[in-house]
């Protein structure tokens, strides 16, 4: 092991730290090291879901107010779109950044799959939005545009969560994906501006429930 350096003499001396441990001491070491590993390797999923849930509530909520009955303020609508885009980008970048940082020095099939899954998000969004742009180019009626783009974002999100649930064998993730798809369908039937209200309230509620569940699991693991 070339990178173990020339410290083997030091290492031999350190075998002295093989003092017999009591079961209590051993268990304390297990708990301490496990806690350190969790902190260093685990992504704070609860926090990510909380951020996305807040983004949906604020972003789609502002969009609802902008497109509310009898008014359509383009400035407010753009602000809402920017809030959603920025908040989702922050959450995605935070998730990607956390995962990359925590995956430093680790290689193998499961980490490769994790990285591929994370990169699938921007790819899926890009594909969905490109299809929307194509529809508009083909002459989609303008009144349907505020229905299509948020619906695409939510639908892609739901499908990615469903895939993530399968991939991670995570029932919370899977259930959230199914819920988001249901909410997306409901938002389409609600029409404009009701679609924004459905996405803001029912969509963010799903994320907030997931946040609560993940936070509880995290707390139980710490205890």
């Amino acid at each position, binding site marked *: 092991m070339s990178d173990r350096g020339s410290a083997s003499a030091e*290492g031999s001396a350190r075998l002295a730290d093989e003092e017999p441990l009591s079961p209590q001491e051993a268990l304390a070491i297990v708990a301490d090291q496990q806690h350190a590993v*969790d902190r260093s390797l685990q992504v704070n999923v609860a926090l990510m879901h909380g951020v996305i849930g807040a983004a949906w509530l604020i972003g789609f909520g502002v969009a609802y107010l902008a497109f509310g009955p009898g008014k359509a303020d383009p400035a407010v609508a753009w602000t809402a779109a920017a809030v959603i885009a920025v908040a989702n980008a922050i959450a995605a970048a935070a998730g990607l950044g956390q995962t990359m940082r925590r995956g430093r020095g680790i290689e193998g099939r499961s980490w490769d799959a994790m990285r591929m899954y994370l990169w699938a998000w921007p790819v899926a969004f890009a594909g969905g939005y490109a299809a929307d742009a194509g529809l508009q180019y083909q002459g989609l009626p303008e009144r349907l545009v505020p229905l299509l783009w948020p619906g695409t974002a939510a639908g892609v999100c739901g499908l990615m969560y469903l895939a993530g649930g399968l991939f991670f064998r995570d029932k919370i993730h899977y259930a959230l994906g199914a819920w988001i798809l249901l909410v997306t369908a409901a938002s389409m039937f609600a029409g404009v501006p009701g679609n924004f209200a459905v996405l803001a309230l029912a969509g963010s509620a799903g994320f907030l429930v997931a946040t609560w569940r993940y936070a509880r699991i995290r707390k139980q693991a710490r205890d």
Partner: protein
Amino acid sequence: MSAEDLLPGLDPVIHAQPRLRITIVLAAIGEDDKMTFPRLQELTGMTAGNLATHLRKLEDAGYVAVTKSFRRRSPVTYLALTRPGRRALEDYTAALQRLLAVPGSGPNGSGPNGAPDSDPP
């Protein structure tokens, strides 16, 4: 008195603070994954020499697999817990919990390694 004499049933290869920490860290990554030496050092908080020495013991016991390769022309050492290593850690923590569940001798004369009285037969 060795660790094994003091607590029979606990794997002496794992029953030492540094090796216990190493196996816990390596068990936290997937079975098909491996970790570089510097990252393992960072996560265990051990010096390079100390880590290398204890890794050698774990490798000799067949609990850790060491692979070497090159990344951008630099040598990299990867460590992974083997299947027997993973099993050994699971057995070790289970034995530890049994020991703590039955402090001292039980009413039926079961020793410190005996199963808790409430355990199913």
